[in-house]
């Protein structure tokens, strides 16, 4: 499927807390904006690809936005692992002729029942959560903090390294007027004084809680060349559930610090003409700051155990860092919409329209949830 499809439209709602509109309404608004951006009409959309966790279902979206006959629809599970997955599924459907124009999206409200499953867990726990939740490892932050502590122990990573991640994201958000944290600076001192959430992770190691929706439109490379926006070609796509993986509480395999990124990356680079050394900018899934060093290792920007050191000397910061990362502010400082905003920022880097545009960027890596079954895209201009 290399370069056979492209993202030709992007759309989003405002980001906020306590937005009045329903998740279905937000989804429809983002999709509508993306269709307009692509200079297409709703009747031309015949494919839908969404997160399993979406509140608004395909049927509702189609009859609200006034889409045409839908001939392909699919869902990808595992929350934040699905972002690149839904785009990749849409691209595969277009590439194989199952549909011609597909939309993929994520709409989320922080207070909704499906958004924070840990806060509505039933009194008795079955399945794999019974091996962690009874002991107070209850929230995603507790689950990732456990891996983080081990990572720090094995490889000498420090809170200063995690601060590098949080500060880089915040600097990028301070350049993006649409980012939640646009007018809030973050200093290293503020980071170090941030209250604990789950030691060794503090407030600033966590992503935001955001209401909002984002959508993309995918069509064939041929069609893309006739449309209004410069195409962001889908050069490579991969997903992974690594061997013996357990969702979030991946403490039970031989080496829990070899996360889903490794298996996803090996397939992604195998399918790609572009290699890590040729990637000038990345959008790496950042529900928690330690996922960035883990992803830098997994996706081959450095060796195992070197991800924390990679973040030193402003390496993640625009414009002079070795690999400007999460250039819109990402999940930690722009918005946390299950990582789908990272996909749109990847498109903007390929179009040349980011508020922290990497000059001459010809491609951008976008990744989805680390610690869960995941996915990644390599987009190119």
């Amino acid at each position, binding site marked *: 499927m290399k370069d056979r499809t492209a993202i030709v439209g992007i759309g989003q709602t405002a980001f906020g807390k306590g937005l009045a509109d329903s998740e279905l309404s937000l989804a429809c608004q983002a999709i509508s904006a993306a269709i307009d951006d692509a200079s297409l009409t709703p009747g031309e959309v015949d494919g839908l690809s969404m997160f399993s966790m979406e509140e608004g279902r395909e049927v509702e979206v189609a009859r609200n936005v006034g889409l045409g006959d839908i001939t392909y629809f699919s869902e990808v599970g595992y929350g934040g692992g699905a972002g690149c997955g839904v785009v990749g599924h849409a691209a595969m459907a277009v590439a194989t002729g199952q549909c011609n124009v597909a939309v993929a999206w994520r709409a989320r409200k922080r207070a909704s029942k499906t958004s924070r499953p840990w*806060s509505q*867990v039933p*009194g*008795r*726990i*079955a*399945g*794999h*959560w*019974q*091996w*962690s*939740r*009874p*002991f*107070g*490892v*209850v*929230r995603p*932050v*507790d689950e990732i*903090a*456990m*891996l983080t*502590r*081990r990572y720090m*122990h094995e490889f000498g990573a420090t809170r200063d390294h995690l601060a590098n991640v949080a500060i880089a994201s915040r600097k990028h958000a301070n350049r993006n007027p649409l980012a939640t944290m646009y007018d809030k600076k973050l200093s290293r001192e503020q980071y170090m004084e941030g*209250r*604990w*959430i*789950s*030691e*060794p992770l503090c407030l600033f190691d966590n992503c935001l809680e955001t209401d909002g929706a984002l959508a993309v439109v995918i069509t064939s490379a041929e069609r893309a060349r006739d449309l209004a926006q410069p195409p962001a070609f889908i050069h490579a796509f991969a997903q992974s559930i690594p061997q*013996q993986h*357990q969702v979030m*509480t991946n*403490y*039970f*395999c*031989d080496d829990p610090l070899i996360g889903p990124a490794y298996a996803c990356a090996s397939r992604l680079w195998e399918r790609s003409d572009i290699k890590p050394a040729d990637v000038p900018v990345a959008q790496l899934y950042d529900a928690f700051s330690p996922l960035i060093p883990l992803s830098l290792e997994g996706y081959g920007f450095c060796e195992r155990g070197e991800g924390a050191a990679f973040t030193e000397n402003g390496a993640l910061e625009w414009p002079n860092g070795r690999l400007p990362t999460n250039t819109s502010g990402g999940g930690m400082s722009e918005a946390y919409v299950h990582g789908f905003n990272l996909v749109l920022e990847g498109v903007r880097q390929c179009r040349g329209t980011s508020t922290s545009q990497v000059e001459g960027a010809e491609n951008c890596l976008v990744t989805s949830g680390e610690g869960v079954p995941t996915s990644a895209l390599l987009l190119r201009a």
Partner: protein
Amino acid sequence: METGLLLPDLDDEVAAPFWEACSRSELVVQMCAACGKSRMPPRPMCPHCRSVVATWAPTSGTGTIWSYVVPHPPLLPAYAELAPYNAIVVALDEDPTIRFVGNLVTSANGAINEIDPATIRIGEKVRVVFTTIDDVTLPRWVRAG
């Protein structure tokens, strides 16, 4: 006595023998009846030989702390009351790839927030103890060093 914690569903058909063993103060691990390999967490099929026949083997009940966290609020009310508390992952002595999530306490009925988290170290030796909450017996860990 802690109340309102998220307790396991004792009717879970795969895991029930584990929790039953805890109620007898035994820490057991699921073992494939065909190839003899241990697996944790328990599941219906052996990923090594695909047998669906399993037994439960006793363990040493000793291990080392592989990692730990100290959760702070916001948390579900029962956990918020205890916070900050510790949660640990223990690697079993006889097979360090067999791991259990638990809590470090000073005695079987000790609270999960009684140990100063600043004193906890990865690599510390621990031994299993059992504490009963409602109808569930949970494995917890005390220092064995």
